[in-house]
């Protein structure tokens, strides 16, 4: 069952096709990576999903029903990249206030806020003000506020920026936790290693269009370049073999590229035939970062402004 389905979503601004015909779907409990260079249309897409913008065209199905921006926002928790809180307001009051705006009653909001504050070791913050917090502490608070009302869909835009590794892990664990409990999470970031670590499924946007969609493993398979790394007991002398070529060699370690029409076994049988001892043999998959750069490179990174006649 899909938590969210987006079909043919379009949003044109006066000078840009910010989101141009994007479709994807998001399963319940999955962690979804929304990737793309700056200005790819991620924020606009998210704003449509959170009901801040109305799409020009297309359809959003939320939890099996057409998305109703007025009532369904209570089921969404959104932590924008441009985020902040009231400087002069007490932290506890602030959490309760924002939870109330998400439809919780006052008493419910207080109860939930206290639970989360205890969970994250922030009890002593309740009567403090934002001014008293460091940037990382503020970030942690912002995360708590985003998930306080137990939304079915959580959208996190660069959630780890400014966090130390300890707090990063705390939040990462909580993200896994929430997804296990059935919340779906959209995770938007430029930090590819985090995406690789956390996400099940990714889409990549560029210039308002979706240019990649799949599971992390699947995407890597799709973009693999048949590279393998081999460690040998003794460094080979000269190698002449038609099934592969050597891309890189450091002493006893080789990186080889298998030529089309051949299989990894051909490489192994070559070295076995040479009586060379093989210590390890491993496929090298491209990192998401490589894929990202490969796909986006060559297209002008900065979007140009152009008049749109829609």
């Amino acid at each position: 069952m899909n938590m969210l389905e987006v079909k043919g979503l379009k949003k044109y601004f006066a000078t840009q096709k910010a989101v141009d015909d994007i479709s994807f779907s998001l399963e319940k409990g999955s962690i979804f990576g929304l990737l793309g260079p700056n200005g790819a249309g991620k924020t606009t897409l998210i704003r449509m999903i959170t009901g801040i913008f109305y799409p020009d065209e297309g359809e959003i199905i939320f939890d099996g029903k057409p998305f109703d921006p007025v009532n369904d926002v209570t089921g969404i928790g959104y932590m924008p990249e441009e985020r902040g809180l009231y400087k002069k307001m007490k932290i506890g009051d602030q959490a309760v206030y924002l939870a109330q705006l998400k439809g919780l009653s006052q008493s419910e909001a207080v109860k939930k806020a206290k639970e989360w504050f205890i969970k994250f070791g922030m009890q002593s913050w309740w009567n403090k003000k934002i001014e008293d917090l460091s940037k990382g502490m503020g970030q942690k608070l912002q995360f708590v506020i985003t998930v306080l009302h137990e939304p079915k869909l959580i959208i996190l835009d660069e959630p780890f920026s400014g966090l130390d590794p300890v707090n990063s892990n705390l939040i990462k664990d909580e993200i896994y936790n929430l997804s296990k409990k059935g919340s779906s999470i959209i995770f938007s970031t430029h930090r590819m290693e985090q995406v690789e670590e956390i996400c099940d499924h990714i889409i990549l946007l560029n210039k308002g269009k979706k240019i990649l969609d799949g599971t992390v493993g699947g995407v890597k398979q799709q973009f693999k370049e048949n590279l393998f790394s081999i460690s040998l007991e003794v460094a080979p002398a000269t190698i002449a073999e038609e099934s592969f070529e050597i891309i890189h060699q450091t002493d006893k370690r080789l990186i080889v590229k298998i030529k089309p029409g051949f299989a990894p076994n051909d490489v192994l049988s070559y070295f076995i035939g040479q009586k060379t001892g093989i210590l390890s043999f491993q496929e090298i998959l491209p990192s998401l970062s490589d894929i990202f750069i490969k796909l986006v490179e060559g297209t002008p990174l900065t979007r140009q402004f152009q008049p749109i006649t829609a």
Partner: protein
Amino acid sequence: MNKIGVILRREYMTRVAKRSFLIMTIMVPILIFGFYAAIVAVAISGSSEKQNVAVLDNASLFNGKIDSTGNFNFTIIKDQILDTFLQKYQQKGYGSVLYIPPLDLNNPGGITLYSELQIGPVAQSNIEKVVNNAIENKRMVAANIDPEKLSKIKSDISIIPKIGKGKEFKKGSSEIAAGVAYAAGILIYITMFIYGMMVMRGVMEEKINRIAEVIVSSVKPFQLMMGKIIGIGAVGLTQFIIWIVLMFVLQLFLPVLFPSLGHSMASQATQTPGQSPGALAAITEGLKYMNFGLIIFFFIFYFIAGYLMYASLFAAVGSAVSEDMQEAQQLTLPITMPIVLAFVIMTKAATDPSSGLAIFGSLFPLTSPIVMMARIPYGIGTTVPWWQLGLSMLFLIFGFICTTWLAGKIYRTGILMYGKKASWKEMWKWAFRS
């Protein structure tokens, strides 16, 4: 619209709980009251300090007899030479010496007042009046006119203004009406600015703090804007109500603080007809004939409606600027201009409430809250016909719906735009596109 309620409550509570609100709300009426009390105290105690004046009347202007007036106790000194008397007048308990040389009645001159301290202009003119009266009396006698007969012939009346139609006429006072008109107009002008700016700063704060996007993912921008506007408006209303109650209570203390006030007012009221009553009594009398219930009612209406109209525009400007207060000032110019214009028309309407300009100003929604409040003290149903009042209120409500609709559209786009300030042209586009 439960969420507007939540927003409204926050906006209201955070402001009312501030110390500055408490100080403003309590201090302003106490200051005004203290000022008023000081004026009353001066008015009552003014006559207590008498000055003794020795009069060396070498022209026998006063025929040996002179009445003490106002702050002066006059004593005629006989058989003294000026130079020697000036050496010792202070020892004899006089503050000053009025020297009248032998006079030619047709061309009097050389009358001198000797004193150690500089004499005030009012005191000087009072003494001049006394001397002038004496000279006039002498001249009348010289011209064979009986001064007593003349004073019987002389007339000194004052007009009692009554306003109304048909059989119903009420006593009115144009000076008092003008005073109340100015006060009401200025009060609405100031509050509109203060609370309008408060809305603008609130919107800017949300935008600069970057909390706006967090909130609009929960509520519609329009709800956020309205919650803020109504919440701050409620703060203003609370302040007014506290002011009115405090002023009323403090005013009850006035007779307690100044027991002599009641007495002096009573004595002034029973003065013989023909004599004008004291200024204080006149004010009290005049205020009695103002319909304060109605004035307060319309004040609150025009404050609320006018505030709602302008506050939404201020909110739109707040949403369009980023970071900089100076940018905000440039953009508020088109909004503050009609308010200032309204103030200018108001100063005219407060003295001439039935002029064409005043009537126009009190109907046109952008100026009517300020201008109409300056006309209402002159009398509803008389100076301000009911149809004008009704039309003005209708236009104002319509104006407020228009500006709110317009501002809502600008606000929706502006609150999420970062980086640069929007121009009025761009804001126009946000309002009328899509």
